């Protein structure tokens, strides 16, 4: 391909502009959060020092310690159980020659496009009748259900990509379905599992509406919910403290992202297409 110097400069300019555009809000908020407590900030000001006071006030005032803990618990269960269920199902679909896969896939497709805002009402009343409102289960169980379609499709694509010679060989030696899955196929799907974990982690961590409806107890709030209430209880009037709280909530996903960003991006991009 011919690329002139001019085109290179244009391309770099575009990317740098895009980067600036993306980073501006981040940096703006970060500066706001790190600013001197009590000072009324306006606009985009570079703080004259690094002050963590806002973070401390946010942490103490917003109950973010329990909120982060709650989010972690929910994420743990949702990711764990979804991974297990969807891997088993994808294995069956792809490798176990199950009848009726087309029909089952069509049913799953429904869940991929369904806006869950439509079904939260019913979920709420169901949970309430089983006395599960205000428990972690009210968040965990629906989110597993909602994550199943994408996860099954994802893992199925992964299984599909594995050539069959190894499993055939194992079958000849008398290995059962379970053994083949665990010993042979699973190790080969670890990259896909890892990416799926990262995606599920992000989506579950960021979930808000479900928590808003199900969780009334402030001890059980997840991180985004705590942030929303914190920003609403503006007795902590200072936008700087709210900014600090926002940073706190974003931090876990950001950290995972920094280390695993390749997975994130390839996950969303390629997974979306495989759909």
């Amino acid at each position: 391909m011919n690329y002139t110097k001019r085109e290179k400069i244009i391309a770099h300019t575009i990317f740098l502009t895009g980067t600036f555009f993306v980073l501006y809000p981040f940096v703006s908020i970060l500066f706001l959060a790190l600013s001197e407590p009590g000072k009324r900030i306006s606009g985009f000001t570079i703080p004259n020092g690094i002050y963590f006071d806002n973070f401390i006030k946010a942490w103490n005032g917003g109950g973010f310690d329990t909120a982060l803990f709650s989010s972690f618990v929910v994420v743990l269960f949702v990711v764990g159980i979804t991974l297990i269920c969807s891997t088993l199902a994808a294995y069956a679909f792809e490798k176990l020659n199950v009848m009726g896969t087309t029909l089952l896939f069509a049913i799953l497709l429904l869940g991929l496009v369904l806006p869950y805002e439509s079904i939260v009402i019913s979920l709420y009343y169901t949970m309430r009748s089983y006395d599960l409102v205000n428990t972690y289960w009210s968040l965990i169980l629906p989110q597993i259900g909602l994550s199943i379609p994408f996860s099954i499709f994802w893992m199925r694509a992964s299984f599909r990509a594995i050539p069959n010679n190894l499993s055939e060989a194992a079958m000849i030696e008398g290995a059962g379905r379970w053994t083949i899955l665990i010993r042979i196929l699973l190790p080969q799907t670890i990259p896909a599992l890892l990416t799926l974990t990262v995606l599920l982690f992000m989506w579950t961590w960021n979930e808000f509406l479900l928590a808003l409806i199900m969780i009334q107890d402030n001890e059980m709030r997840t991180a985004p919910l705590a942030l929303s209430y914190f920003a609403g209880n503006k007795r902590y009037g200072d936008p700087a403290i709210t900014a600090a709280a926002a940073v706190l909530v974003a931090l876990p996903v950001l950290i995972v992202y920094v280390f695993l960003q390749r997975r994130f991006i390839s996950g969303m991009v390629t997974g979306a297409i495989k759909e």
Partner: protein
Amino acid sequence: MSNKNIYRPQSKFQYSSYLYIIPAFVFYILFVLFPLGDTLYTSFTEWNGISEKKWVGLQQYIDNLNNKKITSSIVHSFILIIFYSFLPIVIGLIIAGIMIRVKIYGLTFYRAILFLPQILSMIVVGVSWRWIYAPKGPLNVGLDYFGLENVSRAWLGSFDYALPAVGFIGTWVMFGFAMILFIAGVQKIPTELYDAAKVDGAGAISEFFNVTLPNLRGEIIVALIFTVTLALRNFDLIWITTGGGPGTSTMIPSMFIYKKAFQQGQVGSASSLGIILTLLIFTLVSLILISLRERK
């Protein structure tokens, strides 16, 4: 097990294989399909969440679709589609089109940054942008600095500008995703196609429309579906930035669903609105798939 059989590449079908599927489907049916059916049933009733449900047939649908506030909320969602979907995709395509001609160093770095908005909770995004749009926030201060004082205003408080302002947040969230998606797609296009086009005397623009675009069909479909569904759903961002205001200028269907069900005790009406929203999304997704499908 008989050695005499020719081994098919896959296991012999056994009913017990269904056991592998059951756990996943139990969750799916219980927490997705069943609520959907329940919502559908409730949409034909009048219910305040406490007493008995009263069957009213299609009345809720009629009332909702006749309600100007509800129909304008749907219009608002469509306006948001322009910001969440069309703008980012157009930007992404143009940039991807430029990309084919250049090899960029540091693409990984750019990708990592451009993707950042996608990973954040919409609440975090909303809180941040609320600050940016504030009367004395970075945007207005910046505008004043460049002498554009008469442009600066209370963005999220303006009847005319609140919806585009929120839409713009969506553009910010989505454009990096679109860019990355299309660049990855473009890199898969075999260079021979471009060489062939050049031989035919095609310029950059023609290249774009005849080679790049058609080969990005899959990616465009994905981007469209992803962004359009988000634009139509979108509860979190509206909740945290404007709450539907000022007035009802940024109200969207999902916000009405919440208010009706949980603040006004009109669960039947909210359910019917939920079904309407679902049907709307299904229709749009089908339209996208049908109209952009390969025609061979």
